[in-house]
């Protein structure tokens, strides 16, 4: 895969992208704040949600076993998958047993995380994404760039052009027209499919229910029309009771899209029984894929994330580089924790470093996840080899020694100041000089003052005769 800085360069060079991002994120941010202002006791609700989630995570194994029992009681089949490969194989096996050819999908970042589509296609099956955003992403041969708004990086014109190219329909940039075209195409897919795959927003331990939150209703078709429904759920997605679920739903919709509740909230409780509508078989795949490794550690808090995307929308880094620059399924501030957490820090150490720790994400997170704290933690444990260039490492080590001895520190900074002034000869350095070239790449460097504050202060004391 390309290097982080190349992806950033590409993103920053794309004017279309920055315009699309700016518009969409600011809309989401303002909708969120309006929605929260109408929520009574919001701060309290956030505290409760955080506490309940942390409690579940504390005792995750027990809760998962209870959840499994409840699911089975409802007539669902339960599968466990420790990694992506196992998860993909479970799905493929279920499909092969029933000679499935065509699969419809809805709402699953987890399936992106484990690259399920690629595995299914390789196994000879046809997979169709049915949520509008994901459908467009699939048409483009692309990846989602936001947790809840997968095509936030595209303008209406982009989408119009894509549909015109791939589906041979007349160009339009009217959302209604585009949605209508997609809906018509998808209708037949639903009817033809033998299997539906969805993710899950929450799993309710007590009742064994799977909760799916959507705005388009496609998930309803995916979960009811085909004869088999497979649910992929990360092991961290549990809530204890319906009462808890209710709290999370209030927070999720408001944080994600600024709605009081999303348009559709589906609760799935096992296969359709007798005359009821619903699939004949429901399979729930509980996926670990690195999550249990984060339990109890410095990044455990990130498992409480309900994937609302609010932290992405307020993040000044995300807003400028978009989701694809992060290089993996989860983008933005929380992605900078989850990606190294799940996939390992060695390959992903640039992500935690690419933050100013401005704290906007923490402020907005409905679960009050302390994202900056974990980003710092990741910077601390980054393997020394990749941590920093040798020169930076040496500089910081010297700095620590020097700063620990005031006399030396003063002498050193005074020398540094003189050196910089000498190099600058004027009060500004504007071109690249060693060590400062990454500063002067985008801005000029003001050279140190001729007289330090401490000098001025000492002269003042002398003058005042103190």
């Amino acid at each position, binding site marked *: 895969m390309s290097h982080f*800085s190349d992806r*950033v*360069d590409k993103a*920053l060079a794309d004017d279309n992208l920055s315009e699309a991002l700016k518009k969409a994120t600011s809309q989401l941010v303002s909708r969120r704040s309006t929605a929260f202002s109408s929520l009574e006791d919001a701060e309290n609700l956030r505290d409760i949600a955080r506490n309940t989630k942390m409690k579940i995570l504390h005792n995750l194994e027990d809760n998962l076993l209870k959840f499994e029992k409840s699911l089975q009681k409802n007539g669902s089949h339960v599968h466990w998958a420790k990694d992506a490969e196992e998860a993909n194989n479970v799905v493929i096996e279920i499909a092969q047993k029933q000679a499935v050819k065509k699969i419809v999908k809805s709402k699953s970042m987890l399936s992106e995380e484990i690259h399920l589509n690629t595995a299914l296609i390789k196994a000879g099956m046809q997979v169709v994404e049915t949520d509008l955003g994901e459908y467009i992403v699939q048409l483009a041969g692309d990846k989602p760039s936001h947790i809840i708004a997968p095509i936030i990086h595209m303008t209406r014109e982009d989408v119009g052009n894509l549909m015109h190219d791939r589906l041979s329909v007349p160009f339009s940039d009217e959302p209604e027209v585009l949605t209508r075209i997609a809906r018509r195409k998808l209708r037949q897919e639903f009817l033809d499919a033998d299997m539906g795959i969805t993710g899950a927003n929450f799993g309710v331990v007590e009742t064994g229910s799977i909760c799916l939150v959507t705005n388009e209703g496609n998930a309803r078709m995916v979960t009811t029309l085909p004869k088999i429904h497979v649910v992929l759920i990360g092991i961290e997605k549990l809530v204890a009771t319906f009462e808890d679920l209710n709290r999370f739903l209030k927070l999720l919709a408001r944080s994600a899209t600024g709605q009081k509740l999303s348009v559709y909230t589906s609760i799935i409780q096992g296969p359709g029984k007798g005359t009821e509508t619903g699939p004949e078989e429901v399979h729930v795949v509980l996926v670990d894929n690195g999550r249990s490794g984060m339990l109890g550690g410095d990044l455990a808090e990130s498992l409480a994330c309900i994937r609302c995307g609010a932290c992405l929308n307020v993040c*000044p*880094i995300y807003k*400028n*580089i978009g989701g694809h620059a992060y290089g993996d399924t989860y983008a933005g501030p929380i992605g900078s924790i989850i990606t190294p957490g799940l996939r390992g820090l060695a390959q992903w150490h640039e992500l935690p*470093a*690419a*933050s*100013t*720790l*401005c*704290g*906007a994400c*923490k*402020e907005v997170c409905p679960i009050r996840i302390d994202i900056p*704290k974990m980003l*710092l933690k990741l*910077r*601390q*444990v*980054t393997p020394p080899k990749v941590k*920093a260039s040798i020169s*930076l490492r040496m500089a*910081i*080590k010297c*700095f*620590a*020694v020097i*700063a*620990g*001895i*005031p006399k030396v*520190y003063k002498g050193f*900074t005074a020398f*540094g*100041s003189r050196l910089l002034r000498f190099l600058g000869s004027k009060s*500004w350095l*504007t071109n690249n000089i060693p060590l400062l070239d*990454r*500063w002067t*790449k*985008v*801005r*000029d*460097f*003001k050279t*140190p*003052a001729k*007289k*330090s*504050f*401490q*000098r*001025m*202060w*000492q002269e*003042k004391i002398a003058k005042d005769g103190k």
Partner: protein
Amino acid sequence: MMDQSLPDKAATVQLFHTCLINEFYPEVGMAVVHILERLGIRVEVPLDQTCCGQPAYNSGFLEETKKVAVKNLEVLSSTEGAIIIPSGSCGDMIIHQYRILFAENPDLLKKVDKVSRRCYEFSQFLVDVLGITDLGARLKARGAYHPSCHLLRGLKIKDQPKILLENIAELEMVEFEDPEECCGFGGMFSIKNPEISGRMMDNKISNLQASKVDMVISCDMGCLMHLEGGLHRKGSQIRVRHLAQVLDSGVD
């Protein structure tokens, strides 16, 4: 204003002048001194103070940070009175991050507690401790206030600087787009990720330019040094000023 009776702890204060002010912006330190002395407060400057350690800390160098922080704690512990920090970012480091840094060392933690209880960011000290909102300053300009992130979200200081600015005669404070968005400095971030940092800086600068301001005022020289570098590169006439400089204008 001068008659306001000061709480005991304000009789003598220590100035933690920060590295950037010491080396690059000494006039900001002097402005802080002027203001405090005008209020009848005795200012002391512990000359052995060093960096708060934030650059190393934010880059993940924990052990190195601890060394610097221990030294700093030692120096500050040996002084008395309130410690005034004209920087939200260094303030947050000493007040909040030292606690995390030494969480597992009860002795040092006690020291941190004692020191950090005496620490105040400059505007916070004026408004919350001294109860002063008008320093009698006068400055004819169109100004914009940039709340630096660590001041705003770390120390939760939001209104104090604005109140002080509102009371400056002839200073017209101007609104601009996305004032609370990070300017892209972020300490070492500005060097590690200059491209993203530069884009964030550009956004901030164009929002300031769109509001036709003469100066951008903040409580952190880090953000301001970065913005000033960008403004200079672009040949902009917008100046950067620390809150203390503005509050020290037109009073003599």
